[in-house]
């Protein structure tokens, strides 16, 4: 099933532009409906909490400003079933004797208890790749370690994504300082560009371990008539893109794990025919000079550059190996 008729470029792109515009207009339409309140109200919107939020705000008046710009804003006025008591149970006792001991503060609970409170409204982080697991929760990290329920950025994160992730994954952040790296420092990509927490916002469009890479590097994705098996996640020969590339940053160009021929020789060694003078390494050439189609070829099984005849030396003397003599 194709949503758009693919017509060699122009019509397809024009159709896509209309679709982008239609999508934007749809969003505005939805917004207008939202402003006019035409969507059905959530369940329990008319239920009254044990202690109304306005009573909490009599003492904790600073939270009014903090919550104002967040998705938990509804708690300020007990709208849509959300109130201070939704998370901080024990309020009826607390208003009689306001101490920290007789009210629940989710950020002070252990990770699983935090998750249970948040799960009343929010899906846990259990994307398809995790198959029902949350690795952060297994390490004792709770929701409050990354999210700030009363303030914060998009997704109620306590800081921007890169700063937040690198507060624990310092080694990963410093890999982006290496010789070649993904542009995290520029803000062009951040951790969630590749590492997904929620199923509906997954960036990947491919298959297997390399799915994320093809989202931004589709020119390498294939399929090809002749595949380089190491670059394919499902093959018996390799693990996909990370077989050769560091995902964050590396000491060589193009995020390669090792340079020049060492990378190829890790799997291929030096094929016997390449030890002769007039081929391959015998001519002291890097593997990629000839076998440039490392991600797969539509021309030949050996991944040779399709323009090899014209790119290489037009005659023996320009190679530097033979001379006419003086």
């Amino acid at each position, binding site marked *: 099933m194709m949503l758009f008729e693919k017509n060699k470029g122009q019509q397809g792109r024009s159709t896509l532009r209309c679709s982008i515009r239609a999508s934007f207009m749809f969003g505005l339409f939805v917004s207008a409906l939202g402003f006019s309140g035409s969507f059905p109200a959530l369940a329990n919107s008319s239920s009254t909490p044990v202690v109304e939020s306005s009573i909490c705000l009599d003492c904790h008046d600073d939270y009014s400003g903090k919550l104002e*710009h967040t998705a938990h804003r509804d708690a300020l006025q007990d709208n849509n079933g959300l109130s201070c008591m939704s998370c901080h149970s024990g309020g009826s006792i607390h208003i009689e004797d306001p101490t920290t001991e007789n009210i629940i503060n989710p950020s002070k609970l252990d990770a699983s208890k935090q998750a249970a409170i948040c799960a009343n409204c929010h899906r846990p982080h259990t994307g398809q790749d995790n198959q029902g697991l949350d690795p952060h929760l297994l*390490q004792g990290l709770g929701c409050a370690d990354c999210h700030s329920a009363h303030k914060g950025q998009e997704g109620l994160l306590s800081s921007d994504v890169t700063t937040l992730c690198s507060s624990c994954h310092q080694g990963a952040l410093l890999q982006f300082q290496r010789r070649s790296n993904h542009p995290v420092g520029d803000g062009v990509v951040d951790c969630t560009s590749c590492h997904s927490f929620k199923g509906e916002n997954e960036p990947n469009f491919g298959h297997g371990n390399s799915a994320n890479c093809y989202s931004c590097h589709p020119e390498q994705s294939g399929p090809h008539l002749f595949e380089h098996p190491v670059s394919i996640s499902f093959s018996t020969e390799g693990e996909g893109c990370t077989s050769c590339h560091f995902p964050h940053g590396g000491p060589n160009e193009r995020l390669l794990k090792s340079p020049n021929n060492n990378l190829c020789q890790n799997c291929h060694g030096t094929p016997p025919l390449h030890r002769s003078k007039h081929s391959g390494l015998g001519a002291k050439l890097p593997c990629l000079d000839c076998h440039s189609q490392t991600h797969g070829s539509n021309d030949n099984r050996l991944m040779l550059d399709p323009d090899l005849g014209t790119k290489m030396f037009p005659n023996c003397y320009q190679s530097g190996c033979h001379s006419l003599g003086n």
Partner: protein
Amino acid sequence: MNTQRIIKRSALGILNVTLLVSLIPPPSKATTGEAELKLGYIYLDETGFNKQQQSFNLYEGPALSLENLRYSFSNGANLTGDFKNLTMNNRHLKGRLYKSNQFGLNVSHNKYRRLYSNNPDRFTRRETSDVTFWAKPHRYLKFYGGLGQTDKSGEAVELFEPGKALNITPVDYQHQRYHIGLLANERGRTVQVEFRGSMFDNNSEAADQRSTERYRAITMFPVPRYEEVVLNGGFQHFKNTLDRDGLEFSSNSAWGGARVYFKNSITARYSFVFDRAQNSNELIATDNITHSFGLSKRFTKAGISAGYRKTVRDDIDTELDAAGVYLSGWAKVGSGFTLKGDFGSETTDVEQGSTLTGDKDLTRYRGSVNYRFRDVSAYAKFASRNIENTDIGSQSDYRRGTFGVSAIDSVYGQLDVSYVTATGDYQNTESNFEFIEHVISGDLLSSYYHQFQLGIGGVYYKSDRDVDVESISLRLRVNYELTKDWRLEGVFDGRNYDDLQNPNSYYTANIIEINIVKKFRAKED
């Protein structure tokens, strides 16, 4: 034709304006919000070649930005935005309009330039636009979708240059993406269906047009009357087609699993994945089958997990069997220490047929100590990974140590200092590659004192042994508060890069950025 186009565009324009106007609430309703408008100039003084630098995405000239936009309407809707360098070719724009539990609309646009060689005229430019939306017509129902397009054009340079001549590759493609999905979720019971697709038009290589489709359905739910048992499962069909020849890669995947929560905070897990992938150019398919088991126990201030994974990869000619184990744990010790450690090992054997790389052994272990006392934290971490292919005499070793300290003081400011060292050793029967890297980074930002705020930071990178690269960057910041809503910013960024094995590869830059910032606040009635 032109008249029709004018009428159509006018109609669309009127409709867009009408919808935008409908977003503006009546003046009698209260709103709150803030934003920062930044106007500045970037001055670049560069020497050398910046193909390895992130500064290849910087431009000299005036820059206008609208940042930290946060606007709340009285009816609960929120508008946020960050629009950086609106006037420049490296603009980075993000906007979001949402109303909690009702709808959301995200729009983003980014332009990015990249250099591949020492010739600054050879570069590619990538322009990406995305629109995503979601709506919740009911508390338990959410539908979502999005569209996106990436245009990349310019000239790239191949990594290795045959005959020592610069090999330039023209790049000109469009990559269009779209997705739509439906999610039903009620207190841990989830059903989700999604379609995702893309089209790739390569104008440099017409025969390279491609398209992908992915259909996915997943579910997760506790067993009725046995809520401590949670089941999950899903199915996915993926297809990638090369339009020229109708060449197609397709896969069908199914997965499932269960979690059981026992008493005393013990959790047991099982999951399986079955995937069959096939390239239409070949008659055989490859099956990937994975079974994994896990057990974890949580204590008051500690936790431990262990697991086992079995994977079979079979394409009839060749069968690989992999078996792996992992063990991890964490503990809070004393009044601020957290210890963590994990170990993993996997052995892959060629049970049938042969592969280029033969059997493989992978071992990884990590450990860390974190200390936190109020607003001061320190950490030390160690990670090691070893991969061996004994049949072909290939081995890789990678080790990394990370140390750091950070402190926040409301009076004086904040400090972050870190050091990481990494070593890599890649050996095979033909050659070796070794490197050792050091990265030192620090950042000190003071609090405001007499309207002044100062910051100093930098990164030092050194790579040695078979690579000899040194890179330094130093960053100085000055902020001066003219008034409560006006601020002057100055940034000096000095950079130096040297590839000592390649004298032609060096770079020095002095980058100065001066901005005047006006903070806007919406007053609440």
